[in-house]
């Protein structure tokens, strides 16, 4: 009995426990990484929870998580809050997520410029014939305001302008794929990993129509595809020793292979 208790005690002290919290975009990736990491390092314990980028970073500030996952860069305010608490934060890019703009497969339009996309989502362009398609009303689908993807699309494509009043907002990416596949005039944006044959991805140009690039992992990796965002891990410098083994694992060739398997774009 005593021997067992001692054994248990000693293993418990050796187990490296760490908590990771934040963006739901990073969640599937980090979960997969944690599973495989725990298989090769039986002494460590990684718990991963979602909740959103903002939730993760505020958990990092109040110390209830060791790593915050975020699909956006830490905001200036959040950084100041950490500094005010006398701590410093470090940033690591673990993967890239590319957004594909998708339409119904019946739609004849194959490419759009950033300006056209911005005007469609702000409600200035209302019919597909204005951008070279059929005479059909455009139905833009957006994610809900709580989603990191919503903010990213707004910053990158719409240059911080607001979405049109009364845009369709869907609670999940899967719902956008479903709706775009069954609505002829629909247009929406989804993570590259969610692309399937039920929707058609558009080529996008960020230089006013000189060069259109199709969304693909290869194009995202060689930086020609423009709607790409980094996925970040944030940790406090004082926790460096504790979190580095896991972050190194994610950045290793094995970890980056998992990144491609999940459908994101590897860093290296």
């Amino acid at each position, binding site marked *: 009995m005593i021997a067992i208790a001692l054994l248990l005690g000693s293993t418990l002290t050796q187990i490296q426990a760490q908590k990771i919290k934040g963006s739901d975009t990073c969640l599937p990736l980090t979960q997969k990484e944690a599973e495989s990491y725990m298989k090769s390092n039986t002494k460590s314990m990684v718990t991963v929870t979602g909740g959103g980028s*903002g939730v993760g970073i505020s958990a990092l500030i109040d110390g209830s998580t060791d790593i915050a996952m975020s699909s956006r860069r830490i905001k*200036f*305010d959040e950084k100041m809050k950490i500094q005010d608490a006398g701590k410093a934060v470090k940033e690591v890019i673990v993967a890239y997520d590319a957004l594909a703009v998708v339409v119904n497969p019946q739609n004849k339009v194959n490419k759009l410029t950033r300006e056209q996309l911005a005007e469609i989502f702000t409600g200035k362009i209302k019919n597909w014939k204005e951008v070279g398609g059929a005479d059909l009303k455009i139905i833009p689908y957006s994610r*809900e*305001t709580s989603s990191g993807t919503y903010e990213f699309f707004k910053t990158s494509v719409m240059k911080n302008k*607001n979405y049109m009043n*009364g845009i369709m907002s869907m609670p999940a990416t899967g719902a956008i794929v479903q709706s775009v596949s069954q609505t002829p005039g629909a247009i929406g944006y989804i993570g590259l990993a969610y692309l399937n044959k039920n929707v058609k991805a558009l080529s996008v140009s960020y230089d006013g129509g000189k060069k259109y690039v199709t969304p693909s992992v290869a194009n995202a990796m060689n930086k020609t595809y423009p709607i790409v965002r980094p996925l970040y891990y944030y940790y406090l410098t004082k926790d460096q020793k504790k979190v580095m083994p896991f972050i190194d694992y994610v950045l290793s060739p094995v970890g980056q292979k998992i990144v491609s398997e999940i459908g994101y774009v590897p860093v290296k």
Partner: protein
Amino acid sequence: MDSGIKTDPFVILKNAEMKRFIEKIIEGLLKLSGGVTSIVILLIVVFLFKEGVGLFGNSTIENGYVLSVNTSNPIDRLSPEQVKKIFDEEVTNWKEVGGPDEEIQVFRFEQIFDLYPEEELEGEKLSLRLNEEVAQNRGIIAFLPERYLLPSFKGKILKDERVSVSEFFFGKEWFPTSVPAAQFGMLPLLLGTLLVSFGAIAIALPFGLSVAIYLSEIAHPRVRKIFKPVIELLAGIPSVVYGFFGLVVVVPLIQKGFGLPVGETGLAGSLILAVMALPTIITVAEDAIRTTPRVMKEASLGLGATHWQTIWRVVLPYSVSGIMAAVVLGIGRAIGETMAVLMVTGNAAVMPTTLLEPVRTIPATIAAELGEAPAGSAHYESLFMLGCILFVLTLAISLSVEFISGKKRVNN
């Protein structure tokens, strides 16, 4: 001695005392649990309203930020709507908002990092550069964090606009995350909720009532034995499953059936909610109909009335208050439903005109937005305020149920 059975009066007394004692304890426990439940419910309501009321008086501009213009600009306040239009570049000249004939130049704090490399903005320098930007451009409107403003800041800071009661209740635009000025117009959400709920009742009532009459008056007891559990099973299906079914099956049907550009409409929400409200309506209405005294029915039949005449003239008038209660409970179920509606109505915050347009309901809004609203912000408090409105709606509904069933007792 008599038989062995204990007849000692002392023992009987003791048993009775024990019983009374146990009864007292049980009584006390019941009282306690009732009291605790009531207090908890009361506390939840107080909390809800406390958080919600905080909205009024909260700034529409994010905490710690200010809007600033050049000192030569005569404008010293802008409504949130004007600010939004300016930052969306829908208003591009100051004269459109009552200022001089000058091009508006929008400046967000992050833009300073495009103008200068980060090393040149360390410490005090950042504040100096921001100061310069605002002082030098006559048409500028800048959105800046307060902490980087020097005491000698050479710009005019616009007056802080508070969220007003009328703006919240009668505003028609819901842009809670719009930066710099959020818009909290809840009218489209309230109308959307009411439209979808009453649409659902309009669909569910005829079906629910016919099924209730059929089950209680016409159906063979054996049929009834099979039907009743099946209907109650409907109530057991998780609402997200209804939502998923709605998105994949009902939405495309509506889109093709009505030739609409988009299938996610209020009608899709009403249909799904109608199916979800049916079990409530059927069960309550059926119970009400079955309470009609046998004597009344037999008297009617005995006078030569047909079965149908008896149902129409005797049974239904007798149970009308119970049926009303069923309707109101059904509406209550529909108003508060979240997940199914979130998935099928498209969640577009527009003023609804017909059932064939996308709508956004209050529960769906709270569910979709609360996760990322920073605690204590105007957005967070506005969601609590929406919760208060929902609470008042459902309270009104349960009060009217009380009123209706109370009236029945008087009639008797």
